[in-house]
């Protein structure tokens, strides 16, 4: 099946990611660990743009950019350098941003995503290094702003801006691209997507192969789909009413879920780019082979290996490799003696499902436990031990607990930070599977106490059997296996 793209939608993305795993900023030794710090405590003459301060490039940032370029299957430039992009805005203390212009470090890459019609390739035009501006806080609402407060802690944070070709054909594909992109970056260990401001996205979108509109200020990978859905609907409405979509830049208002026109006099050519005289050009292609050797196994390769090595389905392998920390956790669980197929089901379906339901995002894995934090409230944290998952899966595999009980144990463990093993929880909650004679006793009681239901069932009303099974489950507090209970009742009544 080939996706026809009936509405002629073209979406391209520009993604800024912070290299927040580095210890220091792009051009100075200020720490990147500013997220919980008081304002303007992580700054120096360089990132404050004080006169006479000289930027010196962080070598690790260049290595990270090359890593990203290789993972995107791009070309690394023979020679690359920085430019100044000139504009006035208070978040930019120097009056220009140091960025790359016509010689970006990476060009011509690609990412394969799960598209509308199976595998779909999204071209990467370029990826380049630049510095982050400071952070502005408006006093009062933006419309009636009384002033602006500036914190330069973020100023000079190392960024990589990646620009894609307009190859995505739906908001869903755009979201899938971002998920995959983020996943690759986390595999490379250059980026922690859970930190505030770690990823910012601008999108360009057109319908009916028409005029491109830029949508700026999308702050989350979830926001992308919403912003694009709104913007596509808006453009279609303009055309339906006989109007023309005008080429413009719009601003996404995340709270209201709408895009708003922003008028700006400064067009691209007005940035007066010129070469940054304080930074020397780079020739780093001789680093490539050494960096290649440090590249980890990337998501697609890991997925293929999981299917091969553990004999699990494509869907499970896809889900497990969608986060490097989850993939490592799964391998930890399998290595410690849990059946890999059971482990896939319990990790990818149940465990991940329960995390998503609670809005918990995986944030760490140290070989013994996987940690997660609440997506909206980072104060809520918890973790889950490999050994606990192994124990739980083995209890289930040995038939000592029902699947319902196993799910309940996972839920209990996610809802408390108390350290308790699965066996302890199972014991406390009385979740061990009822012994067969207990079930037999419950069946006998259920039949004796519900004469009417028994007669109805014998008279042909199948529903009544469900009622009797329900009674057995109630008497055994859900520990009986429903299938066994049903068989026992039928055997008892019909011989």
């Amino acid at each position: 099946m080939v996706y026809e793209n009936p509405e002629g939608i073209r979406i391209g993305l520009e993604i800024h990611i912070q290299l927040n795993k580095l210890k220091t900023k792009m051009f100075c030794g200020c720490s990147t660990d500013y997220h919980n710090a008081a304002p303007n405590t992580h700054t120096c003459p360089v990132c404050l743009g004080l006169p006479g301060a000289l930027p010196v490039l962080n070598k690790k940032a260049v290595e990270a950019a090359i890593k990203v370029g290789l993972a995107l299957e791009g070309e690394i430039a023979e020679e690359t350098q920085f430019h100044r992009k000139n504009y006035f805005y208070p978040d930019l203390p120097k009056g220009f941003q140091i960025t790359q212009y016509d010689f970006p470090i990476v060009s011509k890459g690609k990412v394969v995503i799960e598209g509308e019609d199976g595998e779909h390739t999204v071209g990467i035009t370029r990826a380049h290094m630049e510095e982050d501006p400071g952070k502005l806080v408006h006093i009062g609402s933006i419309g009636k702003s009384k002033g602006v407060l500036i914190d330069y802690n973020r100023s000079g944070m190392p960024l990589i801006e990646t620009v894609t070709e307009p190859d995505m054909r739906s908001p869903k594909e755009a979201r899938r691209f971002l998920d995959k992109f983020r996943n690759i970056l986390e595999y490379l260990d250059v980026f922690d997507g859970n930190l505030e401001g770690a990823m910012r996205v601008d999108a360009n979108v057109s319908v009916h192969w028409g005029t491109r509109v830029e949508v700026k200020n999308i702050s989350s990978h979830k926001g992308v789909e919403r912003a694009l859905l709104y913007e596509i609907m808006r453009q279609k409405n303009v055309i339906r009413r006989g109007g023309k979509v005008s080429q413009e830049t719009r601003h996404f208002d995340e709270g209201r879920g709408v895009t708003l026109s922003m008028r700006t006099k400064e067009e691209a050519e007005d940035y007066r780019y010129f070469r940054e005289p304080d930074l020397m050009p780079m020739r780093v292609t001789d680093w490539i082979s050494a960096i290649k050797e440090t590249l980890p196994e990337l998501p697609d390769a890991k997925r293929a290996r999981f299917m091969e090595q553990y004999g699990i389905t494509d869907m499970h392998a896809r889900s497990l490799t969608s986060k490097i920390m989850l993939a490592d956790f799964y391998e930890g669980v399998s290595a410690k003696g849990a059946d890999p197929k059971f482990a896939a089901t319990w990790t990818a379906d149940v465990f991940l499902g329960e995390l998503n339901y609670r809005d918990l995002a995986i944030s760490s894995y140290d070989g013994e436990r996987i940690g997660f934090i609440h997506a909206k409230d980072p104060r809520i944290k918890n973790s889950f031990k490999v050994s606990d998952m192994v124990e739980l899966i083995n209890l289930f595999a040995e038939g000592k607990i029902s699947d319902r009980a196993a799910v309940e144990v996972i839920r209990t463990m996610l809802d408390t930070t108390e350290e308790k093993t699965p066996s302890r929880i199972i014991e406390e909650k009385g979740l061990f599977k009822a012994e067969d004679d207990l079930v037999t006793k419950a069946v006998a009681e259920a039949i004796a106490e519900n004469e009417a239901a028994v007669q109805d069932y014998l008279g042909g009303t199948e529903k009544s059997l469900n009622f009797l099974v329900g009674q057995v489950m109630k008497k055994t507090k859900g520990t009986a296996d429903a299938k066994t209970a049903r068989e026992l009742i039928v055997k008892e009544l019909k011989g």
Partner: protein
Amino acid sequence: MITKEDVEHIGWLARIDISEQETVEYMEKLNSVLGYFGQLDELQTEDVAPTYHVAEIYNVFRDDMVKDCLPQEVVLANTEHKQDGTFRVPKIG
């Protein structure tokens, strides 16, 4: 050729006010500078690689090692416009 409108636009980009008289003056000066570059353009440079830095230096890096930052009060020492550890500036746009 640089026109009066170009000069006004450049003035706006640099956020400086330029009077009517200055606009004409700058237009003439800028055109004279461009004229000089026009002379350079007559040279045959097709086989010459562009020079961006006079020093043939490449690959100047530093290690990813944290250094001390400035204390907040030092950062804010040169301004009277501060609030809760931040710089306070007028609203934008």
